């Protein structure tokens, strides 16, 4: 009965009377629950699921919908292993996973009507990495030969990702992809001469769609569209879904997109019970289609509405700080601005960026060593987390003996040292690709792969033993003195790595690159004495690479039936080298060992949905705190459902948006903070520029106001 303790773990949190009341509502109720972050809504959701099961509801009739897999973690943890005699398993889905499952199930029923050229063959679902790969094949000729996008300055990878964004928006909001160009053009205020780039973006989207339809490829947008327009309307799918899911729990609906909202609204019509959880002042995934206004319409489907206003997280001072900041940014007076924000705010200004990084590490050390704050109760946040900032913090904290972990999703696979190491070793192991790594790559790969090996010794080893594309045995270093310089224990580890690779080269050919990665990682690098041992980030990266390569192999295997000339292993390495943005890998989001100080971009922290005692906000002068990414070929707001067709996007809209974004961010961050916020400011950013973003302006005004009101901070 391994599941039981998990259930009791889920039960261990004691609930307030208000929470208990919602959990205890009659089963056949559709409840709308809204409130601020940290007011205990998800705890109610978790407990409600458990109560349904304990009350005899078959687990398989329960659907938990979340906008992003990481947000389902509290439910999954509570339900883990608890499957016996409860009527199957609870389904936990995002719209992505649900639509994939449904399209796959009903494929032969709808493929022809959906326009696929090979409706009798299986579909090939492709993730973000492969979408970029195939998109490059379709669009490159248009850009290179027909001068598409010639008036815009943008690099290729970002060009592709913005076309992908457009297609995804169309699918999530629910308009045809043929309208993308017209919608974007209509909203253009100035710079009308740029209008033609939207025509180009439109043509590219349609060209990619044609390619997908003719090759049975389903990217996220097509998958969602097929689900929305072909699968869900069929009687069979309706019977299946309505028949199965009688109880719906939808959490963080404000982060979900309109197509999900519409699906939920329709599903609720036939459901026996529902709990719809809405986080006020949130909606951070707008660039991924989040639409809080649409989400709110789900309230109409509910029998009762409950609001939680009390925070279980914030101290009064932190609450006051959040309220003051929100008020400064024009929030209605309803926000909590009683109390004194001063004790919750620690700030120090520096001239140079490294001084700020230094100050942060010293303050963290003080909190941990003098105030006994557990490192996991501290997060360090910045709008963007560059390698240099991460490295500076990591070095500083590691030097003070403080454990840390970082989380940076949406990066290119090749940007991770662990991935680069595996790719370099793959090049050595596959001489027939004729893509030997450079000597310096070998030096770096050895340094990363072998624990405790420094760059100097890695260089010596490479110079002496990397010959003709192979790593020779350590014993081939003739001089004992030189062997001693390397040291024998490092030599022994090196030997194990070299022997492993040589055995692989000399053995039977293995085509599957993902299997190579898995073997190398599991069979060697994750073991004691090697670089990935006990390194969670490196382990995750290695596993992501395995998944990514496997998906690549499957997709390309599949594509081979359409006579495409593709080479698996080397094509994969080339694709990663080009810098494709990685898929979403759930394991990146699950912190198994929440023991260290977390370093993350601010929004990534929010989507982890947890509270801490102390937050450090770095680079507060950065525009990135308030401003959306400007992307010339797409626009998250103009392509949203609420946008009035033909309306022009003005600067006032942009300013309001920035203020609103920052206001929500301030509330969201303070509501996930128990004790205090440290502001790290350097007059000159990492790049030597003076940042004057809205957060800095707002803080300056607040500090000045408090000073004038006699509350000298």
């Amino acid at each position: 009965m391994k599941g039981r303790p998990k259930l009791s773990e889920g039960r261990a949190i004691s609930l307030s009377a208000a929470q208990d009341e919602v959990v205890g509502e009659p089963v056949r109720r559709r409840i709308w629950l809204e409130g601020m972050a940290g007011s205990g809504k998800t705890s109610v959701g978790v407990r409600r699921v458990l109560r349904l099961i304990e009350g005899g509801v078959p687990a398989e009739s329960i659907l938990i919908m979340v906008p992003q897999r990481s947000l389902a973690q509290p439910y999954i943890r509570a339900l883990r292993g608890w499957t016996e005699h409860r009527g199957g398993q609870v389904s936990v889905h995002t719209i992505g996973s649900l639509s994939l499952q449904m399209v796959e199930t009903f494929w032969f029923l709808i493929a022809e009507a959906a326009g696929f050229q090979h409706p009798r063959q299986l579909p090939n679902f492709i993730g973000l990495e492969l979408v970029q790969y195939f998109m490059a094949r379709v669009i490159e000729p248009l850009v290179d030969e027909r001068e598409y996008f010639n008036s815009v300055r943008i690099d290729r990878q970002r060009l592709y990702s913005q076309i992908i964004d457009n297609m995804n928006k169309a699918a999530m909001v629910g308009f045809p992809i043929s309208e993308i160009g017209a919608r974007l053009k209509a909203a253009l205020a100035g710079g009308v001469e740029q209008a033609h780039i939207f025509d180009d973006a439109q043509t590219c989207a349609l060209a990619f769609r044609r390619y997908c339809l003719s090759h049975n490829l389903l990217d996220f947008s097509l998958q969602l569209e097929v689900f929305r327009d072909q699968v869900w309307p069929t009687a069979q799918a309706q019977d299946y879904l309505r028949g199965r899911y009688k109880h719906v729990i939808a959490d963080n609906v404000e982060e979900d997109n309109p197509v999900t909202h519409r699906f939920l609204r329709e599903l609720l019509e036939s459901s026996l019970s529902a709990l719809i959880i809405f986080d006020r002042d949130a909606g951070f995934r707008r660039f991924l289609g989040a639409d809080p206004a649409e989400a709110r319409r789900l309230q109409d489907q509910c029998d009762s509405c409950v609001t939680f206003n009390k925070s279980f997280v914030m101290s009064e001072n932190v609450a006051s700080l959040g309220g003051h900041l929100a008020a400064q940014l024009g929030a209605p007076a309803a926000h909590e601005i009683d109390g004194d924000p001063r004790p919750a705010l620690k700030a120090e200004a520096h001239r140079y960026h490294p001084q700020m990084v230094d100050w942060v590490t010293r303050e963290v050390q003080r909190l941990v060593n003098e105030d006994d704050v557990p490192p996991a109760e501290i997060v360090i946040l910045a709008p963007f987390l560059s390698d240099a900032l991460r490295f500076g913090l990591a070095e500083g904290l590691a030097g003070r003996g403080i454990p840390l972990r970082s989380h940076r999703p949406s990066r290119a696979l090749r940007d991770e040292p662990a991935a680069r190491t595996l790719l370099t070793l793959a090049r050595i192991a596959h001489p027939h690709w004729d893509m030997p790594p450079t000597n310096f790559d070998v030096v770096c790969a050895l340094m990363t792969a072998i624990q405790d090996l420094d760059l100097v010794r890695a260089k010596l080893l490479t110079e002496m033993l990397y010959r003709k594309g192979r790593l020779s045995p350590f014993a081939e270093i003739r001089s004992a003195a030189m062997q001693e310089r390397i040291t024998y224990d490092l030599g022994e580890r090196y030997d194990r790595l070299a022997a492993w690779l040589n055995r692989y080269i000399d053995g039977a050919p293995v085509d599957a690159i993902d299997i190579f990665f898995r073997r190398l990682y599991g069979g060697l690098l994750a073991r004691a004495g090697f670089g990935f041992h006990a390194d969670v980030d490196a382990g995750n990266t290695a596993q992501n690479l395995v998944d990514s390569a496997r998906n690549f192999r499957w997709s390309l295997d599949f594509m081979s039936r359409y006579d495409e000339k593709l080479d698996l292993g080397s094509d994969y390495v080339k694709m990663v080298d080009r810098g494709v943005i990685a898929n979403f890998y759930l394991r990146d989001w699950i912190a198994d060992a929440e023991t260290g100080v977390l370093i993350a971009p601010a929004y990534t922290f929010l989507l982890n949905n947890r509270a801490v005692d102390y937050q450090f906000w770095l680079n507060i002068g950065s525009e990135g705190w308030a401003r959306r990414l400007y992307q010339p070929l797409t626009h998250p707001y103009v392509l949203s459902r609420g946008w009035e067709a033909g309306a022009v996007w003005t600067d006032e809209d942009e300013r309001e948006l920035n203020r609103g974004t920052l206001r929500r961010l301030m509330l969201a961050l303070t509501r996930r903070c128990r004790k205090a916020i440290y502001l790290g400011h350097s007059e000159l950013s990492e790049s030597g520029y003076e940042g004057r973003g809205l957060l800095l302006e707002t803080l300056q005004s607040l500090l000045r106001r408090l000073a004038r009101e006699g509350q000298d901070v």
Partner: protein
Amino acid sequence: MFKPRPKQQEVLAYRRGFMGVAAVPGSGKTATLSYLTAMLLAETELEEGQEILIVTLVNSAVSNFARQVNEYVKSDGLLPGYGYRVRTLHSLANDIVRGKPSAAGLDDQFSIVDERESNEILAEAVDAWARRHPEAADAYLAPKYIDNAHYRSQKWVEILSETARSFIRQAKDELLTPADLGGKLADYRGELTLAESCVDIYKDYESALAYRGAVDFQDLIRLALKVLREEPDYLAALQRKWVYILEDEAQDSSRLQEDILRLLAGDGGNWARVGDPNQAIFETFTTADPKYLRAFIADEQVDGRELPNSGRSMRSIQRLANHLIDWSLAHPHAKIRERGPLSPPHIQPTPAGDPQPNPPDDPDAVVLFGEAYSATKEAMVVTESCKRWLAANPEATAAILVARNSRGSEIVKFLRQKAVPYVENLNSSSSTRAVVGALARVLAYLADPKSAGKLAEVYRVWRRDERDDPAAAAAIKTVLSALKRVKHVEDLVAPRLIDWLDEAIAGEEGGTHFETLEAFRARVGSWLRAAEMPIDQLILTIAGELFRDVGEIATSHMVALHLSRLADAHPLMRLPEFAAELYDIAGNKRRFSGLGDDEGQFDPDARKGVVTVTTLHKAKGLEWDRVYLISVNNYDFPSAEPNDSFIGEKWFIRDDLNLSAEALAQLTALDDGSAYREGFASLDARIDYAAERLRLLYVGITRARKALTITWNTGRGTATEATPLIALRTFWEGEREKEALHEAPG
């Protein structure tokens, strides 16, 4: 604390509207402007997000300005910099464009190519064009060179690059795209050969930039103006934001800068411009022109003021400079006179009781040599004089000012021969090169981490700030020599069985430097671990530890961006290649510059007892006790006379044509449909050049506090004394005679 004199107080009384201030050298215009900023900050009730915008010329001025304002402002906020921002034109344009990149057709992550990369892209475009049009050289090469393969291939391509660069720069200033120009060419009646080739090259150049997702410096400014013109809402928001615009060094403003600031100020806005039109010396390199500031000050709507008092130079030097103004107003060459190269106000001494009184007058310390020296003889005379003077005045400062870098290098050789202590301030990117050199040494070590010699170089870089301190320099030397002898570098930077530091202490090698070396080891260890980061991030990591100066950090960032782009373009480049690239830049084999101008401030007063060798352009804003102004002949300071030669006119081009000037004239013809007549633009360019050189001479004279010596040389044997020098010498000799008569007994 700043104590304003009466004329400065008039400027400080400014509160609203447009104000134009004509200042003279040494009149304290920057101090006045920063004090005005502080006063406005204290008196103005700024709304949230509002600021005073200060625009100045170079990055080093930005930090000086900010420092001065901070000194004056008592901050009641917690974080510094509240209520104002100081920008160069480039960084302001960057702010404007980054605020609304899509309106400029840019992605959020657009990059800015530096001068070197821009030149490389252009060179590729020109090369390709020249190969496609091998006959093009025939139209312009002088008959003697038409069949010379070297001139047809190399020289022609060089001058075409230069011509195309001027053309593209001007076209961008006029907001003309290759497509606009292509259309105009099709409609133009008449032949514009140069323009046709330049438009083709311009088109290729732009495509190459677009492919990189990048803009060049001209684009940045052009696009800022475009965004402001086409986005009225955005403009209105910026007008609300910047309640005051204060502009320093306004004489070097280009039309685009003026247009941008005029838009930002708006009707009824607040815009104060301070500058010295007589010190506008960047026309040749940019599209700046002092006429814009002069016209602004003369405008009826503008409140015109003057800062005529200067305590910098002794009275005799001021009289000489003032005479140059008077002479130029009656310049013998009518066309130069019409250009009005120099204009009042004249320099006046500071009033009695002023905190900065003029040095005591000593007319004997102004020496204008009329003798025709050869270049060598001139260098020897100046070197000897300098040596004697420095020996007699070890606490004073001195400078030798030259018009060209190459002449500076020649002078340096003589100084070295005669063991005269000197410091060079010659190449326009010396501090950039120093930053790049430091980064190159660290990268070179990381690429070859077992090299003791390279590790020692890193140590030298790590302690670069202390090298001027004699005690530290000796200690550095000791450690360097110990480091070079480290047998196994890993025993120092990543010890396992043996720790070199322990051994060294036992062996007394570097023993007294244990703590420093331990800190050094920690730093190097951290860089070794960082070596596998993407190159741009590695550079930022190293720079974060090495540099403190704003310009240095900004330059490092440009280096990081540059290498990152190289890495994208050449996927096989690794640390060894990146280090080599940086060595090329540091060794001046490749040009490279930061955003706008990253020069750190050169401080002459920190160089007492040493002579500074500097170009006149680099000397702007600086002053020395004694100044030697050399090579004042008709080559470096021509007056558009028949015997004068002009840098823009190449010997291998027919009919003394200045191709850049002709190409610009063709551009104008193309733009406004006017007729083009060959040769006129070349003649006009002579006039402009002569006018700018007069101002350069004025700048040179006004660098001197207590003593000034002017000499000239015959160059390759044919150069003559510069006409303005003859005028000055005649004037000065007359003055001295008058004085002698006045003083003569009886």
